[in-house]
């Protein structure tokens, strides 16, 4: 019989604000509650509670269930269930952000992980989880004694595998897909740090950088990418582009991303032309047509050799895979998705614009008469606990 790895929870979606460094005297429970509350507490009439749990048992770590609850017991509020698991590493003061697959039966059985017998079953389970072919790579011992570092390679295209880092518990009962992050560092700052490590495609420059993850086959991306770029520019910033091809739903989006990455490396303006052309022809596009289009644009721009080199060397592929990896790490799952000051901003119309006005002023959206419009109530406090750092990427 196949062993089953039960997926326990996704904990790393959308926790937004910088959390103040370890509040003196605060318990782990309180700190975790504050850490995750920065997302949940904005829902009116609710608060977030962290409760230690034994749903997952990994030696050396405490497990916590994070739940959003109504403020009053009698209050009921409709909405999606919001509950997740978190692992806390007290020795390093780090919290695990990611998905946890856990098999309580296996834990009870107390069998050690047998690479030869268990790895194929693990691979099958992961293929079913992701809906795509996967390979699993297990490393030797890592920095944490109870956890073996591992990587899941998820097929995006021929010879193109996106990597998800993770850990396997020594008993094989728990599989962790994700990474440990300092509890003292808020997610916004952490995301900004990750994004700054490797810049996206920047067709223009500005006082600050916002990021968009896009999929060339997504209909909303076609509309929102130019709108988002314009909105960011109007506030003095620049929008950088990263790729998140949703290959399970979109058959040519990976190919288009790879071509786009190659063009951008050869010449950023050529990338701009490609983006516009792909979106304009989205309805009738295919992988072959996207490649042909990119090659034509490279030809016309005198950059064919450079473009070909990016493709044949695998550099374009690696750039797309790195973007996918980054998207997963910061919690981006759909497209279009914007990242502004470390916050994930959904792609629907208006939300990026709203966040831009609040965070970066209303430089170009003045009212038509040039007069301030009075607020009906006093403005919000100048600062609030856990506000984003506001640091801009170079």
């Amino acid at each position, binding site marked *: 019989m196949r062993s089953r790895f039960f997926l326990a929870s996704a904990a790393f979606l959308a926790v937004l604000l910088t959390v103040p460094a370890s509040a003196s005297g605060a318990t782990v429970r309180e700190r975790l509650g504050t850490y995750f509350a920065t997302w949940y507490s904005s829902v009116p009439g609710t608060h977030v509670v962290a409760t230690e749990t034994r749903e997952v048992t990994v030696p050396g770590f405490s497990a916590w269930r994070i739940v959003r609850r109504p403020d009053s017991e009698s209050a009921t509020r409709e909405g999606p269930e919001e509950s997740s698991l978190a692992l806390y590493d007290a020795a390093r003061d780090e919290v695990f952000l990611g998905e946890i697959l856990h098999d309580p039966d296996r834990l009870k059985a107390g069998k050690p992980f047998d690479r030869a017998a268990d790895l194929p079953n693990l691979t099958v389970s992961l293929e079913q989880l992701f809906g795509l072919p996967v390979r699993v790579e297990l490393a030797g011992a890592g920095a944490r004694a109870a956890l073996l570092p591992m990587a899941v390679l998820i097929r995006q295209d021929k010879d193109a595998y996106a990597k998800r880092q993770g850990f396997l518990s020594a008993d094989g009962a728990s599989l962790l897909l994700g990474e440990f992050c300092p509890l003292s560092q808020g997610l916004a700052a952490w995301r900004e740090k990750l994004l700054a490590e490797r810049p996206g495609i920047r067709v223009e420059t500005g006082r600050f950088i916002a990021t968009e993850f896009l999929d060339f086959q997504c209909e909303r991306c076609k509309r929102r990418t130019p709108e988002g770029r314009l909105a960011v520019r109007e506030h003095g910033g620049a929008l950088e582009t990263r790729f998140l091809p949703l290959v399970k739903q979109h058959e040519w989006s990976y190919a288009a991303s790879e071509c786009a990455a190659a063009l951008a490396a050869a010449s950023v303006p050529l990338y701009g032309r490609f983006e516009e052309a792909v979106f304009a022809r989205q309805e009738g596009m295919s992988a072959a047509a996207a490649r042909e289009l990119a090659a034509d644009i490279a030809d016309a721009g005198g950059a064919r050799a450079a473009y070909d080199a990016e493709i044949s060397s695998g550099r374009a592929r690696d750039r797309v895979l790195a973007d996918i990896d980054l998207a997963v790490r910061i919690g981006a799952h759909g497209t279009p998705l914007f990242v502004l000051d470390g916050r994930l901003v959904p792609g629907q119309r208006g939300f990026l614009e709203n966040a831009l006005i609040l965070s970066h002023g209303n430089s170009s959206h003045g009212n038509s008469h040039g007069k301030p*419009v009075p607020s009906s109530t006093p403005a919000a406090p100048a600062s609030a606990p856990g506000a984003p750092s506001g640091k801009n990427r170079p």
Partner: protein
Amino acid sequence: MTSGRDRGAALALLLALAIPVACGRGERSGTISPEKTSSVGAPSSAPGSAGTPAPPAESVESVDVAVRPKRPAGGSPPVIWIGLDGLDWEIVDRLAAAGKMPNWKRLVGEGWSTRIASFMPVLSPIIWTTIATGVSPETHRILDFQEVDPKTGQKVPITGRSRRVPAIWNLASAAGKKVGVVGWWASHPAEEVNGFFISDHASPILYEKLPLSGVAYPSALEAGVGQIVARDGRVGAEELARFVDVPRPEIEKALASGQGMENPVVALARILGATRVAHRSARDLYDRNLPDLTMLYIEGTDEVGHVFASDTPPRLACTPDEEVARYGHAVDDYYAVVDRMLGQWLRRAEEDHATLIVQSDHGFKWGEDRPCERSSMNWSTAAYWHRLDGVFAAWGERVRPGRGSVKPTMFDPAPTVLALLGLPADRTMPGRPISAAFRNLVAPARTDQFAHVTVRRVAAEEMSAAQASEYAKKLLALGYLSGSEARPLAPTGGAEPGMTEGAWNNLGLYERETSGNLRGAREAFEKALSLRPDYHSPMFNMAVLDRMQARDGEAADWLFRSLRAGHADPPGTIRQWITEYDRLKKPAAGLAIADRALKEYPASEDIVREAAFARFRAHDCAGALAAAGPLESTAKSPQTLNALALFDTCVGRRDDAARLFQRSLALDPNQPGVVQSLRIIQGAAPPKP
């Protein structure tokens, strides 16, 4: 976020399902068992020939004949060409992966397949005639579902008489090849070929209860066709209960109601019946005649989507639970029927060393791109459910296995089939053989084929006004026609059928979108409007044409005229129009549209919101608020409240914005963007200088 237990359970279920699916792989498809089949042309000996036809003991797709006549050795290998309307890769990939289309899986696994590009306008009679002739609509002139009776001006179903060029079947027949054609669009009356020909009027979807006069060549086949229609075309409640989860009495009531395609149960019965009629006729006649070229068209693969796509997995948020529960597996089960039929054709191709080609005229939206806001059954929005990319697949000894990276067009299959048959193509055919799919395919010689081939048709009874009206009603129910398009025109005179205003409009669309002949497009739209001055579609098309030619004032006039005349989805249309001007970097033109929309539709929440957004994008936050502000007390849509909140933020009224976002959240709690915005408003530092 999902709860851990739910996702764990889902994973466990996946693992549990893996075993039966794997077991199913070993089964051989296309089961062959003895069967006494009815045969076209043998009405007296077939069961059910007297009185009310009994439902078939076993359906045609379930049981194949045990023994078939052998095709004589020698000669060029035959071609079996099956047209499946609206077949789309997304649905066949899903069903093949789920084990519900094993024959399709075999066909693409062992054969060659690719996406095939369709063209605008994506309408079946137009595209299937291009597929069958290899030439453009402006040449073949099948441009609508209807044509005009030259004597009465009555609109009647489109016939082959409107076609101005011979089809592949005529060319092959004239070259001495044996030909069999069943059900091809716009092929009535039956054409005289070296073989057999069953016109599209045998289909119970659109032509139920119409006379079968002229439906078959040789005419002696008519009686047998009638018998097959009566037997295989009739699907009873017991069988339908396997496709839908609807109480049996309700199914019986629907079937007895006299309702048409607007009733899903009746529609399914007709779709299934028509599919079986086409398949049974083609299969039986194929076995008796063993043609060199067989062409079979099945309409149901598209129709079933128009009726049930919104009920089909993956679940659409806009579909009520009750509908999903009743009709959620109808499409899967119908496609399984089609797959069994494909299995029978694979068997014939294998036994007769034939090349089997399966293709569609366009794709269909089966995924998250299904347009919730646009009905698949409404005349004005049905086409939004079509995708431009269709399916092309070939299987047989001459086929080079693989998945094609080239994307052929609808002009390419005709010269491909001629090349497979070793026949020349006409010089006017713009397509090229799809050589990547075949081993050693020699491009056909180009000659003036059309000029030397005469098309002869059998005599057919004229359709009465009442019958034509019945046909028009069915087209309406399927979303192909608007009410105005059913109205008669002035008699055109002469012997040839005239073109409807819809045909002129479609010709204009083809010229504008596919040929790039803008002058020709304008003339065609003007002709459509001269025939029907209140026809909104050519008005809208004129608007697009004027916009393409930078005549923005005229474009706006045509746009609002078309909306007043009934063009679909005014808010969405206005939004797209403004967005397009943004794309064209003409914001002033977009703003002019927005201001005019505010004047013309002051009570429409959706339109006012779109117009206000246009002002916001033009950096006029106060103007946006002034436009949308009156909606605040009555707004019913979270989108409107979110927009108002944005405008409030923009003018510095953060607390008002927060209040509006909270109202929005109360209407729809599942809005992460709103939660996010609230959080920023409540905790944000002041904007940077």
